């Protein structure tokens, strides 16, 4: 029986750099590693990893396994599973951390089933049971209407973690760590999927995830137009971005990339305007990390007012333009 030891983060790259979710996983992983007095390792797999391995060390990894192969240029389950399967077998980690991202939500369940263990997806919180050295995992359930705490005795202990749920360490380039080039022979004949075409729906202006202010509209907006006019005017004034709850995205009023919620993007801006959004848990799961939530809704009983810090009851057509005008005046004055 192999001995399971260490924390292993399956990292990701974004535009050639370490993805922010990976810095968050390393922050969480460092804390677990220190509690367990074990090493924190990170796997970075891509066609070219470059400087991201140094970044992973600066964010807390003791060892970075660099797996480079042309077949790893884009995430595809069948190629990445070959890397994940081999690394899990060779390193025999106690804990495997992935992000609740396109890659993590696809790869982690497959790997857990292959290894015969259990993975808890979309975790908001992780603790270590010090006696048994098992992870205590908290995640949302019932569309965000409740949370559940899970444990498993099976090894390795696997979780995926929601974006922005954990804090990264301060980047420190003086941290010592080792980058280990690692060869994984990828059998390209075993790749059963092929990406034929990729269409990016680039939203103009500031990215939703980076926006300090988000102006979001819901089903009550009634159509695509107000997202491009009324909401955009308020967002532009505050140097923010426009977002949406699920119904506008499902109805095609806005691109899917603007969908904020349990199954869309998770955002945590300073200011979040929820306009004509009822406040289903599905949606609030994606914005509850915002510092200040401001709700505008014609229904005084709307659930969003339970989440908000400030609220106005009224139709968005009446309230939002007046709010934008007054703010313009105050900002100018």
């Amino acid at each position, binding site marked *: 029986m192999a001995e399971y030891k260490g924390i292993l983060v399956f990292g990701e790259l974004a535009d050639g750099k370490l993805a922010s979710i990976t810095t968050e996983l390393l922050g969480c992983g460092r804390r677990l590693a220190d509690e367990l007095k074990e090493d924190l390792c990170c796997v970075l797999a891509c066609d070219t990893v470059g400087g991201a391995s140094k970044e992973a060390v600066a964010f807390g990894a003791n060892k970075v396994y660099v797996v480079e192969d042309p077949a790893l240029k884009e995430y595809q*389950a*069948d190629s990445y599973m070959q890397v994940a399967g081999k690394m899990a077998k060779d390193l025999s980690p106690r804990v495997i951390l992935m992000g609740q*991202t*396109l890659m993590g939500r*696809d790869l982690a*369940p*497959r790997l*857990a*089933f292959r290894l015969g263990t*259990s993975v808890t*997806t*979309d975790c908001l919180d992780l603790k270590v049971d010090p006696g048994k050295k098992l992870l*205590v995992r908290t995640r949302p*359930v*019932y*569309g965000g*209407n*409740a*949370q*559940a*705490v*899970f*444990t498993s005795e*099976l090894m390795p202990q696997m979780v995926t973690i929601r974006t922005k749920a954990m804090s990264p360490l301060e980047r420190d380039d003086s941290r010592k760590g080792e980058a280990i080039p690692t060869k994984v022979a990828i059998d390209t004949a075993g790749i*059963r*999927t*092929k*990406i*034929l*075409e*990729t*269409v*990016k*729906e680039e*939203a103009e202006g500031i990215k939703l995830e980076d926006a300090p202010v988000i102006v979001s509209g819901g089903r009550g907006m009634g159509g695509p137009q107000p997202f491009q006019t009324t909401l955009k005017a308020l967002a532009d004034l505050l140097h923010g971005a426009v977002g949406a709850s699920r119904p506008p*995205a499902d109805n095609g009023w806005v*691109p*899917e*990339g603007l969908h904020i919620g349990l*199954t869309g993007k998770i955002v945590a801006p300073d200011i979040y305007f929820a306009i004509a959004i009822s406040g289903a*848990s599905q949606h609030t799961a994606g914005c509850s990390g915002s510092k200040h939530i*401001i*709700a505008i809704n014609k229904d005084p009983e709307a*659930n969003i*007012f339970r*989440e*908000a*810090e*400030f609220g*106005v*009851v*009224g*139709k968005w057509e*009446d*309230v939002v333009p*007046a709010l934008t005008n*007054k*703010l313009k005046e*105050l*900002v100018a004055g």
Partner: protein
Amino acid sequence: MPVNMIVCCKQVPDPEAPPAVFKVVDNRMTLPPDVKPVIGQYEEFALEAALKIKDKVGGKVTALSLGNNFVRDVIKKALAVGADELVLLEDKAFEEGDSWSTANALAAAIRKIGTYDIIFCGRQSSDWDTGQVGLGIAEILGIPAVTLAREVEVTDGKAKVQQVIPDGCQVVEVTLPAVIAETSGLTLRYATLKGIMAAAKKQPVVWKPTDIGLDPSKIGAAGRHSKLDKLFQPVKEGKCEMVVGDTPAEAAANLAKRLREAKLL
């Protein structure tokens, strides 16, 4: 070429019910009796994806569900909208499972059904939201899977799947048989009166654990790989300051002033 499809559906409490009705009592989710169960929202999208393929190239759609005490009218919706068969894994032993035991039982049932080109699932169940069962089935059966799918087209023994990615979508070609897990985007058609009447007459096939040849220790609660320690609802402070005015425009202006005062903007 006709396509054989199996759609995994789950009966869940209506996820669109207002948040206030979801109450945790003794570590269990308890909902008032007027909140009716439904087929999970993502499984409805999966059903639609399958029915569209059947409309276009022909084939057979088998709906498959696991649970106990199914409300027949709820789960038979799959038949009413156009599925050809309904297979229920229905037994007390199937209760209280997790992703591991559920995927194993469904995979055993799929093996028993025998012929399949596509196994459709929802991206995640509308109650436990784990998003693992479809991928687990693929891993157990040794077939590929594409998740976060919308439109699916079948040609020459392959499927072209529109997959939602952050800030866009991509078209992924996958060899069949495969698991395809649907995200939101397709809307399930309404049942026709003819469909509802045909569904009323049709009896589902009901399988017990012994029918799919799985050891009872691998099923439901006994077959879990994870333990639920606690179910709870975080307390919300709910201290919303309502800003008012004689007119909505005045309330809006007052809100602007209040946000300025609070130094938020």
